[in-house]
């Protein structure tokens, strides 16, 4: 995945448009592409299978076909590697190692001229961004359907539609898909599209690594979903997968252990790519203090990903090793320590909450500034508060374990840090409010979702204060109150910002406008459905309904029916969203280069942007949010064809 330097000289990408000659005959089977991926998947899978069987035969182990080991080695490691090798992910390295001439990145894999190109391996960050988003919405649908199934089960006390195993499988699948295959990669997709453009760069630093990161994602997703086919059913010990429940669970658990590895590898590679891109590929004049807050947000998020993600990888490996290698990390009878898992798991999974939140903060800063026509209030403090959250985020993990039986003295320090993290978060909320103050607000769909985010996230943040307080948490932990809290933070927070971001950049991505009417309908259905589903959960949780139960006390029946009805409204709202997106992408009115009259660089080029983003690398001369400042400019683009000037009009009051 070594990449050549991207030259910043204009005209350096004249090569674009020269497609590689199509392979013919046998070359179609041996050249990189889906055909080769197909047979290499089978070949690698068979090799993995053969190696396991051979060594088990050699060692005289019974039974010869040990399916736990076979699935890990053959189906979930070797076969996906074969798929990637078939696509050509490792061609450069193989050529380099074997001394053959390597093919430098000639940008021939850039750009999309028709929808077919979105289904090919592509190294263009804009195409990859869209590929990410489409893929994650497939998993969003699957995760959402899982939620609707178990909400249907919960509509009445007692079991009606699914049994205990299926129910536990559905909740685990819902959480795993929404976290690892929707929220985290959705932000990676949006940032993939927007960050290089906002920096004034031609692409990410490592375009081929970027393509590889994306390719890992469907593999991870398929692995998780395929666990429904495993004997014993899908992984069913929750997305937290605490041992010893997970080490003793049926085979589906392995699919979770391994799926998380692939999703994690994808996020780590993307994060490295963002870090290098942001540090080294800023346009001339784009100092750190001139970067849009979305870029700041992805910078801090990437740091979080790089530092934290290896911990969840380790935690899942430990669980898997206990099962297939008979290690004893969590086997109490052999001296294992089950709380060790929770410490390692949450050392990733709490920062993961910020991995799922900070990019959303970035999106909201963009949307609120543009739709209020005002500079972001306290820009530097906004950037610094992101960094504060990054640092503090690593010191709060054990607040998930106040009742877990960990060292009692750890509780108060972890409570204090958890409380303090509300301060930088509060700074952001108040700064957004101040940004809107005396602005000229326009309520396009992105702004509606931004306001929806702001109000819902405040509620989620406040319920977070309750959970940070140890005595209250002791009562509320592991109840529906926690379920309400995480949905206010991850749905009212993250998902609302994802929608805001998608509507905001939709014209830039597709070159077409979405329907405002449908967008607003989508917002109101989501907003009402969301509150109706999740607000009552605070109440039933505090009153005594534990989380992750298929059956519950009869007194909660009516409230659960209400939640189920509203959750189906949420399902309907999603249909409106997809209808709007698909129809507008195909037939929406053509979008201009800068429909929001925004100042950041991505809006200074055509919609969709040229294959290499900028015909000429822009010269950045000022901050990104100088709305209302007479004569202020963010950047100078001499040949910014087809777009308006970057200069803001004078303020008229």
């Amino acid at each position, binding site marked *: 995945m070594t990449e050549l330097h991207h030259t910043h000289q204009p005209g350096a990408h004249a090569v674009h448009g020269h497609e590689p000659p199509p392979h013919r005959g046998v070359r179609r089977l041996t050249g990189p592409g889906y055909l080769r991926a197909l047979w290499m998947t089978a070949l690698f899978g068979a090799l993995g299978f053969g190696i396991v069987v051979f060594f088990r035969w050699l060692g005289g182990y019974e039974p010869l076909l040990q399916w736990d080991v076979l699935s890990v080695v053959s189906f979930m490691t070797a076969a996906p590697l074969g798929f990637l090798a078939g696509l050509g992910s490792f061609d450069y390295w193989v050529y380099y190692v074997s001394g053959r001439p390597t093919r430098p990145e000639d940008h021939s894999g850039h750009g999309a001229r028709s929808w077919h190109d979105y289904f090919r391996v592509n190294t263009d960050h804009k195409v990859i961004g869209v590929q990410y988003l489409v893929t994650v919405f497939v998993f969003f649908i699957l995760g959402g359907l899982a939620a609707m199934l178990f909400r249907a089960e919960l509509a009445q006390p007692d079991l009606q539609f699914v049994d205990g195993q299926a129910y536990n499988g559905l909740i685990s699948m819902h959480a795993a898909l929404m976290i690892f295959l929707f929220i985290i990669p959705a932000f990676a997709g949006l940032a993939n599209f927007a960050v290089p453009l906002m920096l004034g760069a031609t692409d990410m630093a490592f375009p081929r690594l970027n393509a590889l990161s994306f390719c890992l994602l469907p593999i991870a997703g398929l692995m998780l979903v395929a666990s429904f086919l495993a004997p014993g059913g899908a992984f069913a010990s929750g997305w937290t997968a605490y041992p010893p429940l997970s080490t003793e669970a049926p085979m589906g658990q392995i699919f979770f252990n391994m799926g998380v590895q692939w999703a994690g590898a994808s996020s780590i590679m993307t994060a490295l790519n963002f870090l290098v891109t942001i540090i080294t590929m800023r346009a001339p004049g784009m100092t750190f203090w001139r970067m849009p807050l979305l870029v700041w947000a992805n910078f801090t998020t990437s740091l979080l990903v790089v530092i934290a993600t290896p911990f969840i990888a380790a935690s899942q490996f430990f669980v898997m090793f206990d099962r297939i290698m008979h290690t004893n990390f969590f086997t109490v009878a052999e001296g294992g320590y089950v709380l060790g898992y929770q410490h390692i798991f949450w050392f990733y999974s709490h920062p993961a909450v910020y991995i799922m939140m900070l990019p959303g903060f970035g999106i909201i800063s963009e949307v609120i500034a543009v739709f*209020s026509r005002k500079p972001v209030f306290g820009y530097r403090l906004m950037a610094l508060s992101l960094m504060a959250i990054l640092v503090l985020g690593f010191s709060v993990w054990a607040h998930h374990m106040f009742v877990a039986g960990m060292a009692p003295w750890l509780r108060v320090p972890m409570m204090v840090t958890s409380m303090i993290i509300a301060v930088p978060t509060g700074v952001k909320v108040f700064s957004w409010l101040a940004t809107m103050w005396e602005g000229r607000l326009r309520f396009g769909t992105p702004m509606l979702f931004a306001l929806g985010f702001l109000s819902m996230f405040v509620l989620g943040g406040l319920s977070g204060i309750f959970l940070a307080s140890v005595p209250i948490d002791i009562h509320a932990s592991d109840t529906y109150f926690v379920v309400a809290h995480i949905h206010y933070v991850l749905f009212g927070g993250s998902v609302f910002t994802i929608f805001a971001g998608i509507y905001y950049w939709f014209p830039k991505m597709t070159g077409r406008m979405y329907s405002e009417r449908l967008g607003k309908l989508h917002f109101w259905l989501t907003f009402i459905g969301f509150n109706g589903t999740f607000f009552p959960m605070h109440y039933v949780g505090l009153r005594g309904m534990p989380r992750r139960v298929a059956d519950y006390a009869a007194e909660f029946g009516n409230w659960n029916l209400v939640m189920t009805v509203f959750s189906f409204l949420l399902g309907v709202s999603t249909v409106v969203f997809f209808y709007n997106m698909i129809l507008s992408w195909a037939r929406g009115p053509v979008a201009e280069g800068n429909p929001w009259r925004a100042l950041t660089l991505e809006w200074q080029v055509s919609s969709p942007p040229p294959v290499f983003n900028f015909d000429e690398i822009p010269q950045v001369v000022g901050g990104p949010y100088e709305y209302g400042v007479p004569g202020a400019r963010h950047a100078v683009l001499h040949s910014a064809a087809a777009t308006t000037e970057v200069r803001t009009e004078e303020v008229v009051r």
Partner: protein
Amino acid sequence: MVVYGVLAGTAASLVAVLIPWLPTSASEEMDRIAFTFWFTTVICIAIFAIVAAVILYCILKFRAAPDDERDGPPVHGHTGLEIAWTAVPAVLVTAISVVSAIVLAKNDDAGENPLRIGVTAQQFAWSFEYPAEEGAEPLRAGELVLPVGRKVKLTLHARDVIHSFWVPEFGQKSDAVPGIETTLVITPKRVGSYAVVCTELCGLGHATMRAPVSVVAEQDYEGFLTRLASGPGDGQQGTTGEEIFASAGCGSCHAFEPAGSDAQVGPPLDDLTGAAEGAGLELEEFLRESIVDPDERVASGFQAGVMPKTYDRTLTDEQLDALVQYLVDGG
């Protein structure tokens, strides 16, 4: 602006006051938790009211006309304001932290001489161990009976996976973790019947893993202990088949008409003659094997590895006999 704030604050306060958010307290610890809860709620309502007021005010007052292309005033920040909204929340959360830490210390304090009761969790049942006279075997029961007004220190153990002990009206909660011992202090203050709820996902029967709790007067508690001690046999989770069925948690997973259980996690136990014939065993023999070694034969439609394999250790031979007889008679 202030009007909106007052409106939002009033609305939020009404929601807070009119809805009975917390269960009626039955322990001194829950009283203190409720105090912390309301202390935090007041602060949070104030913050919510401010934010809601500003959002509403902005939406109503700063809406741009459709043809208004102007920008807002180029305000980049205000150091005083920024310091204020960093410092004030910091003070507020510190206050909540201090109150919480004090309450936590009080709720953790077991006092000089608490009543010590052991709690053992296993898939999917609770059992409780009461102190006996010196030299005697501890007394075990499948229900938790506590004297009112006396500090109790529970010591929690788990046999298989992680479980969590919670009685909503008591407020206190702690995981029961295999391999380590956790403790919980409860001072019941209200006579009544409650339920232990397992709040940590522990497998297929998690939702039904409950046990009865009664808070009784001191003399009733002594009476309960005497009955436990004088009961025939060694007192391990009861002696009659019916008691053992209840205390070993069979009903959490299996439907069985005489016990009134209708759970669907495991196969129903009402008519097993056919299954025994299919296995080529006498019904009694078949039942005994299925309890002690559940994975030997698994009913079609159900999975191996779900039912605990611990019953040969946790039940005495007499108890096993009684349980088998109970199932034979009832089925």
